[in-house]
């Protein structure tokens, strides 16, 4: 398990390879469709210092509020491919070092990871309780009213958040590899059906 502390340098991120298991600690934000659209169309001043040399988490959590503030109850990753039209631009503009999600992303994001020194980290889908427990604090939330709970930008402090590098900054993608191999096998099986 490789420990990653946020913010993280480009040099450290470039050392990561597809298949590496990591444990992430530090402050990041959640972002899905509405947040990505916002970050591309406007200057997201409220989060830009957090995500510079930092990470985004594709997640729409279940939260709870009490006297102490917000808490994450269940918070696994959501499907990342809906952010493919935005992620390369967000990575370049805000100097991201990584995005965490599930299902992997496409060629544009892979190219952006290579060019700017970033990685795609895969969290296990449905691991909502364990991942929520790695969220130690929720210091702030942005756009809650406008975007709703799942789409808001939640600022979270995580400790030993587990993930696997499935797209690295050297042009490798586990998703591309599995897709290619399974497509070849499907072709062969299909002939026998």
């Amino acid at each position, binding site marked *: 398990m490789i420990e990653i502390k946020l913010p993280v340098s480009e040099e450290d991120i470039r050392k990561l390879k597809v298949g590496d298991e990591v444990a992430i600690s530090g402050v990041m934000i959640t972002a899905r469709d509405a947040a990505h659209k916002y970050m591309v169309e406007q200057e997201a001043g409220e989060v830009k210092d957090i995500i510079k040399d930092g990470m985004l988490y594709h997640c729409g959590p279940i939260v709870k509020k009490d006297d102490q503030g917000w808490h994450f109850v*269940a918070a*696994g990753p959501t*499907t990342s491919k809906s952010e493919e039209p935005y992620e390369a631009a967000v990575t370049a503009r805000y100097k991201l070092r990584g995005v965490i999600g599930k*299902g992997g992303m496409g060629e544009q994001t892979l190219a952006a990871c290579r060019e700017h020194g970033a990685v795609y980290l895969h969290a296990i889908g*449905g691991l*909502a309780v*364990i991942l929520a427990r790695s969220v130690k604090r929720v210091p702030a939330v942005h756009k809650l009213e406008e975007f709703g*709970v799942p789409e808001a930008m939640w600022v979270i402090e995580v400790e030993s958040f587990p993930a696997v590098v499935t797209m690295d900054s050297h042009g490798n993608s586990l998703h591309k590899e599995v897709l290619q191999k399974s497509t070849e096998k499907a072709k062969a099986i299909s002939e026998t059906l």
Partner: protein
Amino acid sequence: MNPEELKEHLLELIRLAACDLAPDVERALTQARDHEEGRARSTLDWMLKNAAEARESSTPICQDTGSLIFYVDHGRDIRPGIFMQAAREAAARATELSYLRPNAVDPITGKNSGNNVGRGSPYFHFNEVDDGKSLKVRLMLKGGGSENCGVQYTLPDASIKAGRDLSGVKRCILDAALRAQGFGCAPGVLGVGIGGDRMTSYMESKEQFFRKLDDHNPDSMLAELEDEMLKKVCELEIGPMGFGGRTTLLGVKVGIRHRLPACYFVSVSYTCWAYRRRSLEIVNGQAGYA
């Protein structure tokens, strides 16, 4: 049964479905874990650990608590209108208690209703049965990520060389699994509906998810088809979460409906490994959950 009491039972049903993975699903995941190695094994291990912690702390297994789909078999004395009202109130209360994420979004304005109640949400399917007072409620929480992996084929489909026959159907199932990769949170289950019209074909595919994973299709042809396609799809080695490995699916379940001479639909629905469905039966005022 008074509506308040019914609401409490439905709230418990929602909590169970969201937080307590059904035993047949957990068994299938455990068996899969024991046959895997490397990252596939550790991924399944994490899933099992998460399911155990969710159960222990009454916390949703997955934050996407999906759409609420109620199938209700009821006697004459249970009125659908009263049931729906109780279920809507239970869903709203379950959202307040963080058993459910607010998951009903207006598609035009983008506004989240905040409590899982909205147009067509929850979804209800009523079936009146002969005896007077009994009530059986089946609830599925169908996640959205895996819902995006569903596909409906219109045969013949030249792109996958699928004709209007059993071989064509098999090609549809294989293609759907290939397209799904790990996106639906593999290892999931494929529900397949063959025949019907566009609506009932999809419905048939969804209704398969109420079956137990280890059941046996009473139609021997379909049972054979299920076994064969589960084996063949696993040979794609997409694996848990699409990381590679043998366990690409936990099951394939198939149902058929008579079709129109002009139409031949094959609908494939995908449900994730966090395969959440539970049932409630009330007989003579006594509630039992399964």
